[in-house]
């Protein structure tokens, strides 16, 4: 099984990387880019024998992979 996890800075949190990327895209002429947020993508290879993969991955996100003070996360678990 594979877990695909996306961690993003929360809306109200300053994202200086996103702002720098937006400014870079503008200087390349892509004026249509109104806002950029830069997050993190994490992939986990999971042992199929462990049940409750979904709830375990959620706990992993809450305990370590995301800091919910500043980040939101979302994930899917695929066979």
């Amino acid at each position: 099984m594979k877990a695909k996890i996306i961690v993003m800075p929360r809306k109200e949190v300053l994202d200086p990387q996103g702002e720098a990327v937006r400014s870079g895209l503008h200087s390349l002429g892509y004026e249509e880019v109104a806002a950029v947020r830069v997050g993190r993508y994490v992939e986990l290879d999971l042992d199929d024998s462990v049940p409750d993969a979904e709830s375990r991955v959620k706990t992993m996100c809450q305990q370590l992979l995301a800091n919910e003070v500043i980040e939101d996360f979302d994930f899917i678990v695929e066979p």
Partner: protein
Amino acid sequence: MRVAVITFPGSNCDDDCHHVFGDVLGKETISVWHREVSLPTGLDVVVLPGGFSYGDYLRTGAIARFSRIMPAVANFARDGGTVIGICNGFQILCEAGLLPGALIRNRSLRFICETVSIRCETTGSILTQKLQVGQVLRVPIAHAEGCYQLDEGGLQRLEDEGQVLFRYCAPDGTVDPAANPNGSKRSIAGVMNAGRNVFGMMPHPERISEHVLGGVDGRALLEGLVGI
């Protein structure tokens, strides 16, 4: 009075802290490796020093908070023991949930190494008991992730409870955006927990506690911690 300084893999201000608490302030100071599972007995103060624990992987402080020593640090804090995190130590305490908020990449995206002015916001803590409200200190900062973040409700609670220790300011004490080096919410440079025994700050008081190093603005803070 016994002080412990924790060393994580990647800590690089541990010797400085050990030197200041031990040699400058003359307190018994013990080095503790992060793989220990207990703290020395009879301890009064635990110091989490600056550095780059675990290479700042994932997020600053995110891995260090799971070090074997950290449950003992959390228990010590819960029992009312004094804990201070400086720079990376502040980041670790936030990740561990012992302090509110989080520290993210500086607004400039640059590592900042300079001396800044900070204003004391409260004298209601042992760390700041020897200062005066509004007093300005000149203290070094050296970090890439010092931008303090917390939601508005949390910030208001900090303000209402007087848990903000320091704000970045102009040399005359004025708090304005131009004097905020890293984009921190409300120019916050240091906070404490509701129990007023766990402290975190990005500036380095241990680097400015001897005249030979250019000043002693940080010394009153550390003296307050150890009851001098």
